[in-house]
């Protein structure tokens, strides 16, 4: 188990290091990153000065080490537009995105997993068909479209919910649904497939043969076994939600890091973009490590052997 944990942590560390390096390479790919950071109409002197100021006139490997050294000290550079540390700006927007992602995750897991369980165990029923319709819709309507549709129906026509902004709980509902819809479908489909797969296994028949009802076998044995592939999906989906937030936050004027990313790209504030990219990558790596630990909790074959 210790061995397994150490392995996962080392892998995560290597992955994160790879991400840092790739981000650095991308920033320097176009040659001189100074050009990415200045307004389009900047004069040659301004560019030269900024280049020197940011250290971009030094050899690339010195810059790379300097970049890593900075990251170690949580120094992610300064926003060229606002002249404050990029990290502070991102940090001020982060709580909104966390709220939104949490809301979306509640929608995705809270609806998706029970829906998957029902779809797998009540095959052929009316409720299964209704759920299938919902899941297919969630999966096939693009995020920006479902956002606009929700605004149109519940915000503009019915006037039940605010169309944009943040602050009240009611403002969180529509963006959460719009953002969570796709993940919800993924969770429902994975849960369904995984349970159906488990239901065909010998231990289910054996469980019923000792007198358990099918329902008891599902609750006591099948769900836990079926959870293993769903955990993998959960880890990926959390990262996907952050990526999806870029669109949803724009549609709903939600002041999180997704909206910030778009604004920063538009104003060529690449230090901020860099922080956001690193942050999302970090979340992907972190959730996949967490998933590996949850596996070990659920599955003795991992916990006791490796």
């Amino acid at each position, binding site marked *: 188990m210790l061995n397994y944990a150490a392995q996962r942590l080392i892998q995560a560390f290597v992955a994160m290091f790879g991400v840092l390096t790739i981000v650095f390479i991308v920033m320097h790919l176009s040659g001189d990153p100074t050009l990415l950071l200045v307004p389009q109409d900047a004069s040659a002197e301004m560019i030269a000065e900024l280049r020197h100021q940011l250290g971009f006139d030094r050899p690339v490997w010195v810059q790379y080490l300097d970049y890593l050294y900075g990251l170690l000290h949580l120094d992610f550079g300064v926003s060229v537009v606002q002249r404050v540390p990029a990290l502070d700006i991102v940090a001020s927007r982060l709580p909104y995105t966390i709220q939104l992602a949490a809301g979306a995750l509640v929608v995705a897991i809270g609806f998706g997993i029970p829906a998957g369980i029902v779809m797998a165990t009540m095959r052929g029923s009316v409720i299964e068909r209704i759920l299938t319709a919902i899941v297919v819709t969630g999966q096939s309507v693009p995020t920006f479209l479902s956002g606009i549709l929700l605004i149109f129906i519940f915000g503009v026509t019915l006037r039940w919910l605010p169309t944009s902004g943040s602050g009240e709980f009611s403002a969180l509902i529509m963006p959460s649904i719009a953002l969570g819809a796709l993940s919800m479908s993924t969770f429902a489909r994975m849960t369904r497939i995984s349970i159906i797969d488990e239901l065909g296994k010998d231990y289910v*028949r054996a469980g019923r*043969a*000792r*007198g358990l009802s099918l329902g008891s076998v599902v609750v006591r044995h099948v769900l836990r076994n079926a959870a293993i592939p769903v955990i993998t999906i959960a880890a990926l989906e959390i990262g996907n939600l952050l990526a999806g937030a870029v669109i949803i936050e724009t549609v709903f004027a939600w002041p999180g890091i997704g909206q910030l990313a778009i604004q920063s790209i538009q104003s060529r504030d690449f230090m901020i973009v860099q922080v956001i990219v690193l942050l999302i990558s970090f979340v992907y790596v972190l959730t996949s490590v967490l998933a590996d630990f949850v596996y070990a909790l659920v599955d003795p074959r991992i916990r006791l052997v490796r």
Partner: protein
Amino acid sequence: MDVAANPLLSVDRLTIDIAGAHVVDEVSFTVAPGKVIALVGESGCGKSLTSYAMLGLLPPAARRTEGRIMLENVDLAVISERRFRKVRGKDISIIFQEPSASLDPLTTVGEQIAEAYRVHHGVSKTEAFEKARQMLVDVGIPDPGRRMYQYPFELSGGMCQRIMISIALICGPRVLIADEPTTALDVTIQAQILDLMKKLVAERGTAIVLITHDMGVVADIADDVAVMYAGRIAEIAPVHALFREPKHPYTALLLASVPKLDDAPKADLATIEGMVPNPSEFGVGCRFADRCPLATDKCRLEQPSLVDCGNGHRSACWHIDRLAEIRKVAT
């Protein structure tokens, strides 16, 4: 067959359909307390479906269309699922061919045995756990205190089968169905598991329906044998009568591939030329006709029913009187 006098379980003209074909067709047999009946036959002849039907656990594709399954005087074929649940594991238990796959990989074996007890008895977890530990002692598992907390993947196939036997017997069922219980195990382990089963029948008077395709196992442990072919019983008899003088060409050919009873524990049923027909190709005649050296036109046109040949020996063949021809060919 003396068991007919006082059967505990009697299956009567059981017929199971899959996609319109009778994959199990008018199967009848009985078993008395403390006796072992073996169902033998090539893979795909309907042995497992027959056993699942006895537990009311047929797969969704399969449907019992006819027949009764009498446990003393209760017809299991018609009772509700709710009532059947009280029978499973308590009156009739089963062990399967793949013991490791039959256990939940994420639950300790101790919990799974205790669960089998608690389903039928309203006792505390601790009490059920103690009962389970005692059961492990009975099936000869060393160091039961530690084994209780192990997971299936930590145990060998033979060990898992002992766990399955513990689960099957913890409520003291009157009938144990064993569906190829040793097929997936090493030869030495096979013998141990069979010995264990023999011992349990003797001690507890459990009736056993043993499904196998190993004639050596049949000779070793069965009292009666039903030879199945393509969903039907070809021949059914007390074990000695069947081995001494088979009354069906299929049985005769099977036994011909076992030169002497005692020194050939492994007979391969697939040594007869030709293949078992697919259920979709079952014709109107005898299902064995295509592979039978005695087959005539009558065999291809008319299905033979089981005929009593005396002493509880019954065979479904139009040419019982010509069986000497096969015995000659075989030797």
